[in-house]
Structures are given as structure tokens and as C-alpha cells.
């Protein structure tokens, strides 16, 4: 397995004002193909960390690299492009645009990222083809592509969200509590499918959850409370 670094944070500090920090991370890395379980209760700075990695927030200091390119210091246009090109994001719930069909939802990232569109063309001839392929790999019925999003069960919606995150093979999949709306049986099945598929694309996975029971599925477990020094700094 390649040891290229997909995500790297060093000396990253973030806060809404200059005096106190919400987040302070000395070093955090994800290698290509690696899956990381990031555990943290709500309020531990998860959203902030994801915002920083996704390039919608800017660190006060320090460096955030995605595929060895700084997203923290880039212009807003560049950050938006890096997010479109390299990240596949899965939310807790309601991942899909209700007014688009399943197929259009899955291929949406290819509309915003030329890189992912071309990657999809290289491997599958067209984003629509890749979407078809992903749907069957994810264990969804074929005719789901033409059905409206609103007819889907929560489990199906989350799988469609996985397809959307994977299309065009982005370097890093970020899943933010994607299983919290699923029952326990579906939860494990979902993670298995997600893990299998992202391996095929050699995408790394950052899986954020407060549920420690899911940690067994991942290469590495990181506790955000340990990672984040902000609280300790605040006390001294």
C-alpha cells in the first residue's frame, strides 16, 4: 500500500477570536487508503475540525495539507475547488437534494469537479455509468436511479450518499455520523459496504462518530479530546 499522505494537519489552531482557541492540533495525518475512526462527543470541536479540513473555515495558524497542497492558506476559490476535487462528504442525514433524482444526486460532484468527472470517464466512460455501477455495488436495486429521492428509505438515502461521495474517486471520504439514523443491524452493514467500496477506489476514510462500538471496523482510532489541546491550553 502506498504511503502517500492524503491529509496532514500540523500546529493547527482555530478560534473565533484571537485570545482563545477552540481547536488546537499539533499533528494529525491520514495516509492514502487508511481508514480512521475519529471519536468525539458533541461539543468536542468535530464540526470545527471538519470545517477546517473541508476548507470552509480557515485556521488561525498552522498548516492543513490535502494531497500535499495547503487548503488552509489557499484562496476561497481554490479551497472550493480542492473540496470538490478531493473530498467526498457524507452527512448524518438528509444528504440528498430532494428535487433531483437519485442519478442526478449521485453525479452532482462531477458537475462541480472537472477532475472527478474525468476520473469517472477514465474508469467508467461516463459519470452515469459509474453511478449505475456504484448503485449495484452498494446493494441498491437498479431501478432506484430513476426514482425520486423522497421515495427512498433512510438506509437507502445514506447509501446513495455513499455513491455520491465515492464518484470520481476522491482522495478522502469524510463521514460525519452517517449511521446515527440507522438501526444497529443496518449500521454495521452500512459501514462494511462503505469500507469495501472506498477500498476499491483506494480512498482514505475519516469516519466521525461518538459511538465507540463502531471503532472495530477501522484501521486506526483517534480520540478528538486527546488530539485537541485547546482545553488544556485554556486552563494554563
Amino acid at each position, binding site marked *: 500500500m502506498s504511503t502517500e499522505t492524503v491529509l496532514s494537519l500540523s500546529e493547527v489552531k482555530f478560534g473565533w477570536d484571537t485570545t482563545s482557541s477552540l481547536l488546537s492540533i499539533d499533528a494529525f495525518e491520514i495516509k492514502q487508503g487508511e481508514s480512521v475512526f475519529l471519536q468525539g462527543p458533541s461539543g468536542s470541536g468535530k464540526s470545527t475540525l*471538519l470545517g477546517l479540513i473541508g476548507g470552509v473555515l480557515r485556521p488561525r495558524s498552522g498548516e492543513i495539507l490535502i494531497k500535499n497542497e495547503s487548503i488552509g492558506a489557499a484562496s476561497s476559490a481554490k479551497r472550493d475547488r480542492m473540496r470538490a476535487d478531493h473530498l467526498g462528504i457524507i452527512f448524518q442525514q438528509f444528504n440528498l437534494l*430532494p428535487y*433531483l433524482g437519485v442519478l442526478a444526486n449521485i453525479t452532482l460532484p462531477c*458537475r462541480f*469537479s472537472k477532475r472527478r468527472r474525468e476520473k469517472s470517464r477514465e474508469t467508467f466512460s461516463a459519470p452515469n455509468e459509474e453511478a449505475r455501477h456504484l448503485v449495484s455495488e452498494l446493494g441498491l436495486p437498479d431501478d432506484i436511479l430513476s426514482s425520486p429521492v423522497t421515495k427512498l428509505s433512510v438506509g437507502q438515502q445514506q447509501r446513495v450518499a455513499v455513491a455520491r461521495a465515492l464518484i470520481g474517486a476522491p482522495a478522502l471520504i469524510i463521514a460525519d455520523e452517517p449511521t446515527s439514523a440507522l438501526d444497529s443491524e443496518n449500521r454495521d452493514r452500512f459501514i462494511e459496504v462503505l469500507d469495501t467500496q472506498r477500498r476499491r477506489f483506494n480512498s482514505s476514510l475519516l469516519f466521525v462518530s461518538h459511538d465507540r462500538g463502531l471503532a472495530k471496523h477501522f484501521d486506526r482510532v483517534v480520540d478528538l479530546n486527546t488530539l485537541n489541546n485547546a482545553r488544556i491550553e485554556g486552563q494554563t
Partner: protein
Amino acid sequence: MIEMPPILSLALGSLKARRFTALLTIISIATAVMLFGAVENIRQSARASFERTLTGTDLIVGARSSAINLTLYTIFQIGDPTNNVTWETYEDIRSRSDVAWTVPISLGDSHRGFRVIGTTHEYFDHYKYADTRDLTLRDGRVFEDLFEIVLGAQVARDLNYEVGTSLTLSHGLGAASFSEHSDKPFTVSGVLAPTGTPVDRSVFVSLPAIEAIHAGWRSGTPTPASRLATPERLRNANLQPKEITALLVGATSRARTLRIQRDLNTYRAEPLQAVIPGIALSQLWNMMSVVERALQIVSTFVIAVGLIGILTSILTSLNERRREMAILRSIGARPRHIITLLVSEAALFALIGSALGIAVLYGASWGLRPLLEERFNIGALSLTPGLFDLYIVSGITIIAALLGFIPAIIALKRSLSDGLTVRV
């Protein structure tokens, strides 16, 4: 080079998903545009048809009163003549070398509310409207016999008269007259084609006929002598009028008009007034422009209400679409995409709505065309969309797009603060 994602298809999809409220918004803007278009159309055509009520005539000459009053009673059959012009004066004006033609007009009688114009055949030769259009007969011919009458189009239609119908005239200009000329019946000899001018509401007889029906009258009431004036006797009598109400004058050249006007306004034998119709007509129109302006203001406000409706509809949708914005941001939508999405939504509302409004407006005027032409003097009403309607549609679309920046900027600010976290 990044290909622009088809934001427009997203905007359309989003409108479709909220089709009920979207439809209401579109209907409200369509109604507003329809009203605005109708008001503007009527306003413009009313002005055009009004100012072209009388063309080709260089001067209207009558007893001295006011320019507007003279125009109103000679051309529009509104108001009462103040005084008359003697036949000698008429002959004098007619014989001037710089006068090409004259048409005498004698008023004072009516038929069931429609005014009688006593005149000569020259009226039908020289009265022109809508630039160069002549009066034409739809049926029959102009009066030849003393007791023949020609009807304006609306008179014939409203009263259901045709060539050959027999009728009597009433003394005075009102609808309810107590003195009837019932002993001197007239026969309809011809009916004029519709013109969209007051001519349609007039009836025409010869000047001698006016004298004939008043034979034996004094100060507006019949004397016993009038009974002796039977139609048979009158046909052989000398019916040379002593007075007329007004006259239309055509100069030999436009340049001479001002001199004739000056001469007549300082006429020594009796106080006269000569009015250039075009000037009087636009003066009259300006008097009515308050109503015009009011209509315009009201319809502009209706448009403003429609546009605010678009804004409200998008603003209220923003809360439930917070997630949509976060999803779009997470897959790489740029701030300008979010702005384009909401601005194009506002523009789509306006474009669809105003195009619909214009379509319904012209559809309706096509459908109702026969009815409109029958009932109203709207010869100049435009029945096909024109450049002006294009301006309306594009103007409203542009304003709506500009207004769309308000929700767009709000949504953008929220999406930046929400980051990649999807809030409910």
C-alpha cells in the same frame, strides 16, 4: 477551465419541487404584468386614437369661447355651443384665396341621445382620421333627399337601424327632449363604417334639413306656423340657413394656416375663434393625463407587489433550504453558484410569470377582439405583442434578478457560517 455546472437546471428543479407556492408566485406576477400591460396598451392606444380623431383639417372655426370648448362640441359632441356663426361669415371665409375647402357644421338636435350634425357632402369628403383615413359608407349612400339621414356606425348598431329605417329627430342635445320633430320623419339613406372616433356616435343630415325641421319655430319652440310646413311644401321651399354652429377649414397650404387663424381671431364682423385641431386635441389630452398618470402609478405598484411576492417566496424558502445549501457547498459549489442559483430562481419566477401575463393578455384581447371593437373606440389597440412587451418582460426579469441578490446573499452568509454541518 471549470465547466459551469448547469445551475439553471438546479433552479428549475428546485422550483418544480415547490411547485404549489411557485405557481402562486408566478400567478401573482402574471396577474400584475397582465394588468400593467393592459393599462399601458389602453393608455397608449387611447392617446394615439384620441390625437388622431381629426386629421387633415387645419382649423376649427366657431363663435368665440375657449379652444377646448369649441373642439369638444364640434368634434366630440360634448358640451354646448355658445353661439353661432352667420352664413355671411361662412361665405366670406369660404371665398378666401388661401382657403381650399370648408365644411359647415350645424348642431342643436339629436336622436335618442345621439347628436345630429347638419352639414354638406363635403363633410364626408374632407373629414379624415387616423392620419389619412376617409369616412366610408358601410351601407347605402349619403343623403340626397331633404329628409334622408346618414348614421354613424355605433348609432346604427346600438339602435338596430339599417338603410330604409324611418326615424324622427328631437330638438336639443340631451337624451330626454320634450320637443320632438315628429312631424318630419327621416329615412336612413346610409350607414358609415366604424372609425373609432366620435363620428360613430353622430347622425348626419343636410343643412337644409336642419332649416326644414325648424320651419315655423321661434326661440326653440314650435309656433302654429310650423304645422303648415309639411315635408312636401318644404321640399320646394328656400331653406338657405342663416347661421351655422362651426366650420372646418382646410388651407391651401399648411403655411397659410397661421395667417388664416390670425385673421379669423381678429375678424371684425363678429367674434370668431379659430383653433388648430392638433394643438387643441393634445391640450385636451393633457387635461385627462391625471387619470392616465393615476392608472400608470397603480399598475406600477401592482408590479412592485408582484416582485415583492417573488422576494417573499424565496426568502421564506431559505430556512427549509439551509440543508440544500450545505450539501451544495460540501460537493464544491462555490459562493457564486449559490448566488446564481437563487438569483436565477428569482429571474425564472419573473420571466415565466411575466411571459405568462403577456400571453394571457394578448390571448384574451384576441379572443375578445370582436367585442372590444364593437363596444369601444379602440382602433389603435395593439393586438400582438410588440417591442414594448419585450421591454416589460425583460425589465421585470432584470429587477427580479437584482432583488434575488437579497436572499442569495443571506443564504450565502448562512452557508458560510454553517460550514459543512447540515442544520435541520
